[in-house]
């Protein structure tokens, strides 16, 4: 089987490096070319990943690639995705899928019109612990799921993540979508109502850095999610993804990145975690290659999944502005 030719569109998001490493490690893929609005970064990445830099986007899309991995700033996703779709390329788009519902819909429509697959990069679906949790919940081990308390806490990333015109928001848009997607994927239920307490107390600047969402789902389940950039610089790791799942017959605690060795180093003067769990980005990228070959795997999140998660993040901002619970259609 011939390897799938992939183009990487922008390395603005740090996950691009991990996706590129995963693509290189997989025999079924070739990073055919790299486009980046930042020429210096694009050339550097082309060198690092044994690919070639193409400065012009139309030229990039005309190189015979099957799929495009989009890791630009959030606000740039729409234009890149729509152009890639029109060029007949399958798309893996970094999360959040976009910064507005209208942009996300336009991307989904463009992909549908062109007959290409649009996938949202939700790598947490590829965590073996998450997979096993989902299998066991679906087998009824926990009974009916009544509530979930989730966290996706992290370190403040800086850069364009805190420039609101590029990111669409701070911690809440950055960290709502992963776990909302997991909650939807785990239960098959949709979010019906959102309430959020949001603040900028951590850094006191114009972006939100603390958020706690409360959601009600259409199956009656309720859930909360802590999206805060609350890990200090001295914290041993970047953050976490956790879920406390409460069912009528039992509970499950997921701590997705808890497979770690704890290291201590006198030069750093702090402890560090050394993860040894399976690489979820490799799972995600593999699934996207499958999609490029024409079989969209069930585990891969669609553009619609990306939209549903984005709606919750945007409703959280609206709730914090109004002080009310926001209903989702």
């Amino acid at each position, binding site marked *: 089987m011939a390897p799938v030719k992939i183009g990487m569109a922008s390395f603005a998001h740090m996950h691009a490096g991990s996706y590129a490493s995963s693509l290189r490690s997989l025999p079924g893929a070739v990073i055919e070319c790299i486009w980046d609005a930042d020429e210096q970064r694009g050339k550097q990445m082309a060198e690092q990943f044994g690919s070639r830099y193409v400065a012009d986007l139309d030229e990039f899309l005309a190189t015979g690639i099957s799929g495009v991995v989009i890791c630009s700033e959030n606000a740039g996703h729409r234009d890149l995705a729509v152009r890639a779709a029109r060029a007949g390329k399958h798309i893996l788009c970094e999360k959040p899928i976009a910064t507005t519902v209208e942009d996300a819909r336009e991307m989904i429509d463009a992909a549908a019109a062109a007959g290409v697959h649009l996938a949202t990069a939700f790598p947490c679906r590829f965590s073996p612990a998450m997979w096993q949790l989902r299998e066991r919940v679906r087998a009824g081990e926990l009974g009916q799921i009544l509530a979930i308390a989730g966290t996706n*806490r992290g370190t403040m990333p800086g850069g364009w993540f805190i420039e609101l015109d590029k990111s669409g928001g701070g911690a809440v848009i950055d960290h709502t979508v992963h776990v909302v997607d997991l909650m939807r994927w785990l239960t098959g239920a949709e979010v019906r109502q959102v309430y959020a307490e949001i603040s900028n107390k951590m*850094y006191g600047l114009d972006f939100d850095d*603390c958020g706690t969402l409360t959601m009600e789902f259409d199956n009656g389940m309720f859930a909360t999610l*802590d999206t805060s950039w609350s890990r200090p610089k001295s914290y041993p790791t970047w953050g976490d993804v956790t879920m*406390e799942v*409460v069912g009528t017959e039992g509970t499950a605690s997921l701590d997705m990145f808890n497979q770690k060795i704890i290291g201590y180093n006198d030069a750093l003067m702090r402890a560090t975690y050394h993860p040894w769990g399976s690489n979820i980005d490799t799972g995600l990228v593999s699934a996207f290659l499958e999609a490029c070959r024409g079989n969209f795997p069930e585990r891969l999140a669609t553009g619609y999944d990306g939209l549903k998660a984005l709606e919750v993040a945007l409703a959280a901002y609206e709730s914090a502005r109004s002080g009310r619970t926001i209903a989702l259609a």
Partner: protein
Amino acid sequence: MMNVAIVGAGGMGRRHAASYRETGEARVAAVVDINREAAASLAGEDARVFASLEEALEKCDVDIVDVCTPTPFHADHAVAALKAGKHLLLEKPMARTLDECDAIIRAAEESGKTAMVAHVLRFFPEFVRGKEAVDAGLVGEPAVVRTSRGGGMPRGVDSWYTDIAQSGGVVLDLIIHDFDWLRWVLGPADRVYARGLAHSGRKGQDYALVTIRFKSGAIAHVEGTWMRPSGFETRFEIAGTQGLLDFSSRDSASLRVARASGEERRAAVEVPESPLAENPYTSQIRHFLHCVRSGEAPIVSLQDARAAVEIALGALESMKTGEPVQLRYQES
């Protein structure tokens, strides 16, 4: 040696009685319970047994009344004790309603006696260290805080815990501990939002997720559960502008005993424990006795206890209305 009447001979009454004995500063002179057998078993040979507080106050000369009855009886017993001129230690939550809290506060003001609600977390060293570390500036300004508390469903007489109308469920009975501690650490609360199973009609199961916005701007998330089959556990995390505090009772247990059982000699259950030189309940009672003797104000004021009840009742109301509830009486 001061004389104490324990009202309510359940688990907490027993715990308090043992703590009075451990201090060596007070003796249990009377035990009151409508269940005479339970009262007699707790009273042993030293204390007299009564079926009502009224009778005990009439026939027995006590200095202190310690109320450990189910929540709906708190106000009547507390007010009766204060009106009789006794010092009062009242198990948490202070009462089932804010009106009842107010009645207790009025009775305490009129009597001038020492009155304290047993928010025992203020004597748990892990929660005291957490507060001290925040006060010392370790995390800078607290911004986002999480706590978790719970295990299985508690057993009480006539299953009163499972009846939300009586106990207020996990919100009023259990995580009121965290509400008081959070106010101690973060100052007054502003509004509360909550979802939970309190109004779901599920007997014997309760779970709640409560978000509190504090006047300082800090956001706190409180998980309370009577649905944790893995056993009782408490956790807190305080993230601030300069750092973070992280605590889990499970991760910091200092002793784990696993007893082999069956032919395969596998551990049946492993129970994590954290033994202390002095039980926090005894530290609490030592503090209360000190306040009684010296006339000093207890570390937990009745207004503090009322403010914690207000948060809990606000959370229960939010679950009903689906909207945040503004808290009015939170100044400490």
